[in-house]
C-alpha cells in the first residue's frame, strides 16, 4: 500500500509542480503573486475539451492549441492588468491579480456553465485507461505514465530554456535587477511577456492533465489548484524554478500519505503543515537562496 500511495502522490505532486512553476517564474521576474494563474490553468483545460468536442481536433493537437491560446491569454493578462501597474505599489498589482482571477472564473462560468463538465472519453487514447505496469502490489495506469513523462519532459525543456538560451539569460537577468537589465539593452516588457506565455502554457498542460486524470472540469477548479501550487512554490522557495518542481512533488506526496495514513479529513492541513514547517526551518524555502533585498 505504501508504494501505491507514493505513486498516487507523485502523480498529484507533478501536476502541482507544473502549475507552481508558472507562479514562481512570474514571481521571480516581476515579484508579483499572479493569482490569475489558477484560472489560466482552468481555461487551458476547458479550451482543450472545446477544441476536441466542438471542432473535432484530436487530443494532442488540441493540447498544443490550448497551450498556444493560454500563452496568449497569459500575455494579455500581463498587458492589460499588470503592465499599467508596473510602477505602482505591489499591493495594487496583487489586488488586480485577484480581480483578474474572479473575472476569468466568471467568464468561464458564462461560457461553459456552472455544472462540472466531463473530459471527452473518446478522445483519450485507450492505452491511458489501462494498467501500464504492475510493481508488486502497485498498479500504474497508462495515463499516470503519460503524466510523469509529459511533466518531466516539460520541466527539462523549461530548465534548458532558462539556462541555455538568450531569452532565458535575459529572464534571469531581469530576476536579478530590472533596471540594470534594461540598461544592458534587454527589452523588459518583451521578456516579461515571454515569461507569462511560458508559464501560462505550462499551466494549461497541467489543467488538461488534471482534466484527463480526474475526468472532471469545473469553472471553479482553478482556485484550489492555484492555492496548492502557490503553497508548492513557497515550499520550494518562491522565485526558484527547481524549487517549485521539488515543492510540488513534496506537497503532493505529503498530502497523499497524510490522507492515507493519518486522516483524510486533514489532507489539506497536512500539506500546509509541511509547508509551514519547512518555512520555519528554512525561511527561504527548500531551494530558495537567501539573498538580500534587491536594490
Amino acid at each position: 500500500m505504501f508504494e501505491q500511495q507514493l505513486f498516487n502522490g507523485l502523480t498529484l505532486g507533478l501536476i502541482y509542480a507544473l502549475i507552481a512553476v508558472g507562479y514562481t517564474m512570474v514571481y521571480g521576474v516581476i515579484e508579483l503573486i499572479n493569482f490569475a494563474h489558477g484560472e489560466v490553468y482552468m481555461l487551458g483545460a476547458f479550451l482543450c475539451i472545446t477544441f476536441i468536442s466542438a471542432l473535432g481536433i484530436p487530443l494532442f493537437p488540441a493540447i498544443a492549441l490550448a497551450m498556444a491560446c493560454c500563452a496568449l491569454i497569459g500575455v494579455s493578462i500581463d498587458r492589460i492588468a499588470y503592465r499599467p501597474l508596473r510602477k505602482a505599489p505591489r499591493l495594487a498589482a496583487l489586488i488586480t491579480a485577484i480581480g483578474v482571477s474572479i473575472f476569468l472564473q466568471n467568464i468561464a462560468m458564462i461560457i461553459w456553465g456552472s455544472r462540472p463538465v466531463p473530459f471527452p472519453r473518446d478522445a483519450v487514447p485507450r492505452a491511458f485507461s489501462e494498467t501500464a505496469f504492475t510493481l508488486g502490489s502497485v498498479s500504474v495506469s497508462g495515463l499516470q505514465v503519460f503524466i510523469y513523462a509529459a511533466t518531466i519532459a516539460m520541466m527539462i525543456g523549461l530548465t534548458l530554456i532558462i539556462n541555455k538560451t538568450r531569452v532565458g539569460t535575459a529572464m534571469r537577468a531581469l530576476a536579478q535587477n530590472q533596471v540594470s537589465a534594461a540598461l544592458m539593452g534587454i527589452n523588459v516588457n518583451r521578456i516579461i511577456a515571454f515569461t507569462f506565455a511560458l508559464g501560462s502554457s505550462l499551466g494549461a498542460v497541467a489543467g488538461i492533465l488534471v482534466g484527463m486524470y480526474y475526468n472532471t472540469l469545473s469553472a471553479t477548479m482553478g482556485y484550489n489548484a492555484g492555492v496548492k501550487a502557490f503553497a508548492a512554490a513557497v515550499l520550494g522557495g518562491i522565485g526558484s524554478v527547481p524549487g517549485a518542481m521539488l515543492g510540488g512533488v513534496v506537497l503532493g506526496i505529503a498530502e497523499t500519505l497524510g490522507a492515507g495514513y493519518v486522516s483524510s479529513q486533514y489532507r489539506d492541513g497536512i500539506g500546509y503543515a509541511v509547508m509551514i514547517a519547512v518555512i520555519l526551518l528554512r525561511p527561504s524555502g527548500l531551494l530558495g537562496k537567501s539573498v538580500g533585498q534587491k536594490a
Partner: protein
Amino acid sequence: MKCKRGLVVALAMAAFFGMANLALAADVIKIAVPSPFTGPAAGYGDNVKAGVAMKVDEINAKGGVNGQKIEAVFFDEQCDPKEAATVGTKIAGDKALVGIVGHLCSGAHLAALPNYLRAGVAAMSPTATNVTISDKNKDAKGQVWSFRNVYRDDFQGAFLADYMAKTLGLKKVAVFYENSDYGIGLKDAFLKQAKAVGLTVVGEEAYMKGANDFTPQLTKIKGQAPDALFISGYYNEGALVADQAKKLGLAVPKFGADGLDNADYIKLAGPAADNTYLTAPFLAEKAGPEAKAFIDAFKAKYNRDVDWMSANAYDAAGMIIEAISKVGADRAKVREYLASMNSKEKGYKGITGLTFFNDKGDCEKPAFVKMVKDGKFVPAEKQMAN
C-alpha cells in the same frame, strides 16, 4: 450650467423609472429563491432555478394569480452559510417578497433561518435534508416558518443501511462523507442503522467539498475489501470516488442519497457509475401522468433529463403559489396556509406525490431506489417495502 442640466435630466429619469417600478410592483407578486447560482454548488442552484422557473412560467401563462403575475427573484448565496445569512437579511427585510423557495443547501438554510423567523416569512426548501432544521424553525410563539418538500437525512441514511443489509444482503461497507452539515448528518444516520442491522463499517473517510483526489483513501480501503461504498455527499465528488475506485480495481456497488442523484453523475463517472444505488424522492418511471407531462416539458425546455431537485423545486414553488392564490399576498397568511396542510386530505398534490407537513414542517415522502445500469438511471429491481 451644462452640468446642472444633466443633473436635472438624471433626476427626472430616476423619478420616472422609480414610478415605473412602483407601477410594476402592483402588478406582480414576488417570491424569493435563494440558492447557489455561482460558486462550486452553482450546478445544483441551476436545477432549482429551472424547476421554479417552469412553475412560475406555467402559472403566468394561465394569467397568474388573481390577475397578478408571479415573479421569482433569485438570490445567489453560493451555498455558503455566511452569504446565506446576508441574503436572508435582505429577503426578510424586503416586504414585497411574500414567500421563499429555498435554500438549497442545509447549511445555508440553517444560517438564513433566524432572519425568516424574526421577520415572519415562510420558507419552503425543496432540498435541505439536514435533521437539525426540524428543531430550529419555530419562532417564540412556537409557529413553524420553515417547511421542506423533501425527506430528512436520518430517514434516507437509515433507509440505505436497511436496503444494503436486508434487501441486498451486503456485509462490509466503507463510507466516504463530505465534511458538511449534509454529509455528516446523512453519514451519522447511516452508521447508526448500519450498526443496528449488523453491517460492518470498514472505513470512514471525510473529504472537503471540491476535493478531487480520493486515491489515498481508496487505496487504504481497498485493503479492507469492502462489499460496498457509501458516498455521503454530492455527485461531483461522488463521481470521482466511483471513477477512481474503478481505476484502482475496487469494483463494488456504490450507494448514495439525493446528493448523488444527478444525470451529471453518470456523465462524469462514465462506466464507473454503473452499479450505483440511490434513494430518490422522485422516480420518473413511477410518476403519474401529470409528472410525465412535466418531465417532457422539462426535457424540451432545458434539453436535459429532469432531476429530483428540479421536480421538488417545481412543487415547492407550486405550494407557495397555491398558498398565495388562496389567502392573498400576505406573509403571515401564507405561513398559516402551509401549516394547515397537515393531513393527507389537506395535502398538496404535486408531481412528486402528495405532500403534507407534520408539526415540525417536515413532510413524509416515500423513498425509491434507483440504480445506474449501462449508463442510465433505472429503477432498482428490488425496492424496499415502504
